[in-house]
């Protein structure tokens, strides 16, 4: 089949096959139908990332917040879109909690470097892509209350990663506990030793006076 125009005809055949083929999902042998977005949503891959959010433990966002306002992520963020102010206690002393935590998502490029650099497992990537607002600026700055999301939510969107995070936190806690226990044991042992020594000394002291 090699006459002038045969290439075009071959190409047309491919187009025709594709028109027919567009009604069927060849790999799964079923009809291809339009997805009814937004009622029906495709399942996102676990790794999908959009913008960061802050994880909190338990039910109370303020109490459970993991972030300690160390500002490492603020420093590392390439386009500098994180803004943190440390909280203070009643006496004006800074405490390990953010008072302000803003992320300007009109600037954020979803690079995940904040997540990688946070040593306290407190900032993670979300996978919400439909973000919009009525204004170009203010609605696109997310404040702390909007950023805080529960650990359960985190488990919902990325189960594997969240489980690994929890395991790490748990391991760290156990290590800390074990260390505390070891320290306590050490103190106790030292105390016991001191007591024993004192007792021994006492015994030694009293020994000579003991009647034979």
């Amino acid at each position, binding site marked *: 089949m090699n006459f002038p125009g045969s290439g075009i005809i071959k190409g047309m055949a491919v187009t025709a096959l594709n028109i027919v083929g567009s009604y069927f999902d060849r790999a799964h042998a079923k009809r291809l139908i339009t997805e009814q977005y937004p009622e029906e949503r495709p399942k996102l891959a676990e790794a999908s990332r959009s913008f960061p959010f802050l994880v909190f433990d338990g039910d109370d966002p303020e109490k459970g917040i993991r972030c300690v306002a160390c500002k490492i992520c603020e420093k590392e963020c390439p386009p*500098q879109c994180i*803004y943190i102010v440390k909280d203070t206690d009643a006496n004006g002393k800074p405490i390990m909690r953010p008072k302000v935590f803003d992320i300007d998502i*009109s600037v954020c490029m979803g690079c995940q470097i904040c997540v990688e650099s946070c040593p306290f497992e407190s900032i993670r990537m979300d996978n919400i892509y439909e973000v919009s607002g009525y204004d*170009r*600026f*203010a609605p696109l700055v997310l404040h702390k209350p909007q950023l805080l999301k529960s650990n359960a939510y985190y488990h919902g969107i990325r189960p594997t990663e969240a489980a690994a995070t929890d395991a790490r936190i748990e391991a760290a806690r156990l290590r800390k506990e074990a260390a505390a226990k070891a320290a306590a044991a050490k103190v106790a042992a030292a105390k016991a030793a001191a007591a024993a020594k004192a007792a021994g000394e006492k015994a030694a002291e009293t020994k000579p006076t003991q009647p034979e």
Partner: protein
Amino acid sequence: MSPLLPQTVLDRLHAALPQARVELVNNPSPSGQHALLVHREDAVQVAEFLKNDPELLLDYASDVSGVDYPEYLEAVYHLFSIAKKHGPIVLKTRTGDRGADASVPSLTRVWKSADFQEREAFDLFGIRFEGHPDLRRLLMWEEFEDFPLRKDYVAPNDCEYEPTPHGDIVQKAAAASASPVPQA
């Protein structure tokens, strides 16, 4: 492919062009890419030699970039040989200073590939490449006056900042990057 050492190139250069002022610049990095620093007046001659010498045949000037140092500007050429499949040989030329005498000869006539890249270095660093066929700004617009990639470049403060609560982020970012560290 056997690696081509800058020292070999230098020896051949000295043998062929004894009067050319070329020296070896040591590169302390683990990359070991030592450079040949050629005096700007001899640059075109040396470049012709490097390109045509049957042993070297550095026919491919892959990369041209400018570097800003406190005393002078530098044009850096990364040369490869497609015929011999060796490289890179790093060729450097320096301007006299960063102001009136900021010029080096253009090597575009030797390697056409330097054309746009020299224009870019001219645009962003203000290195004037003497003898370039068409030395105009490449990326910035014609009327632009400063050289953005120089270390002492001050960005004009005429952009409209977003009215977000991030006023001090802008300031902080500016403060953090205001003073570049000059190379030791």
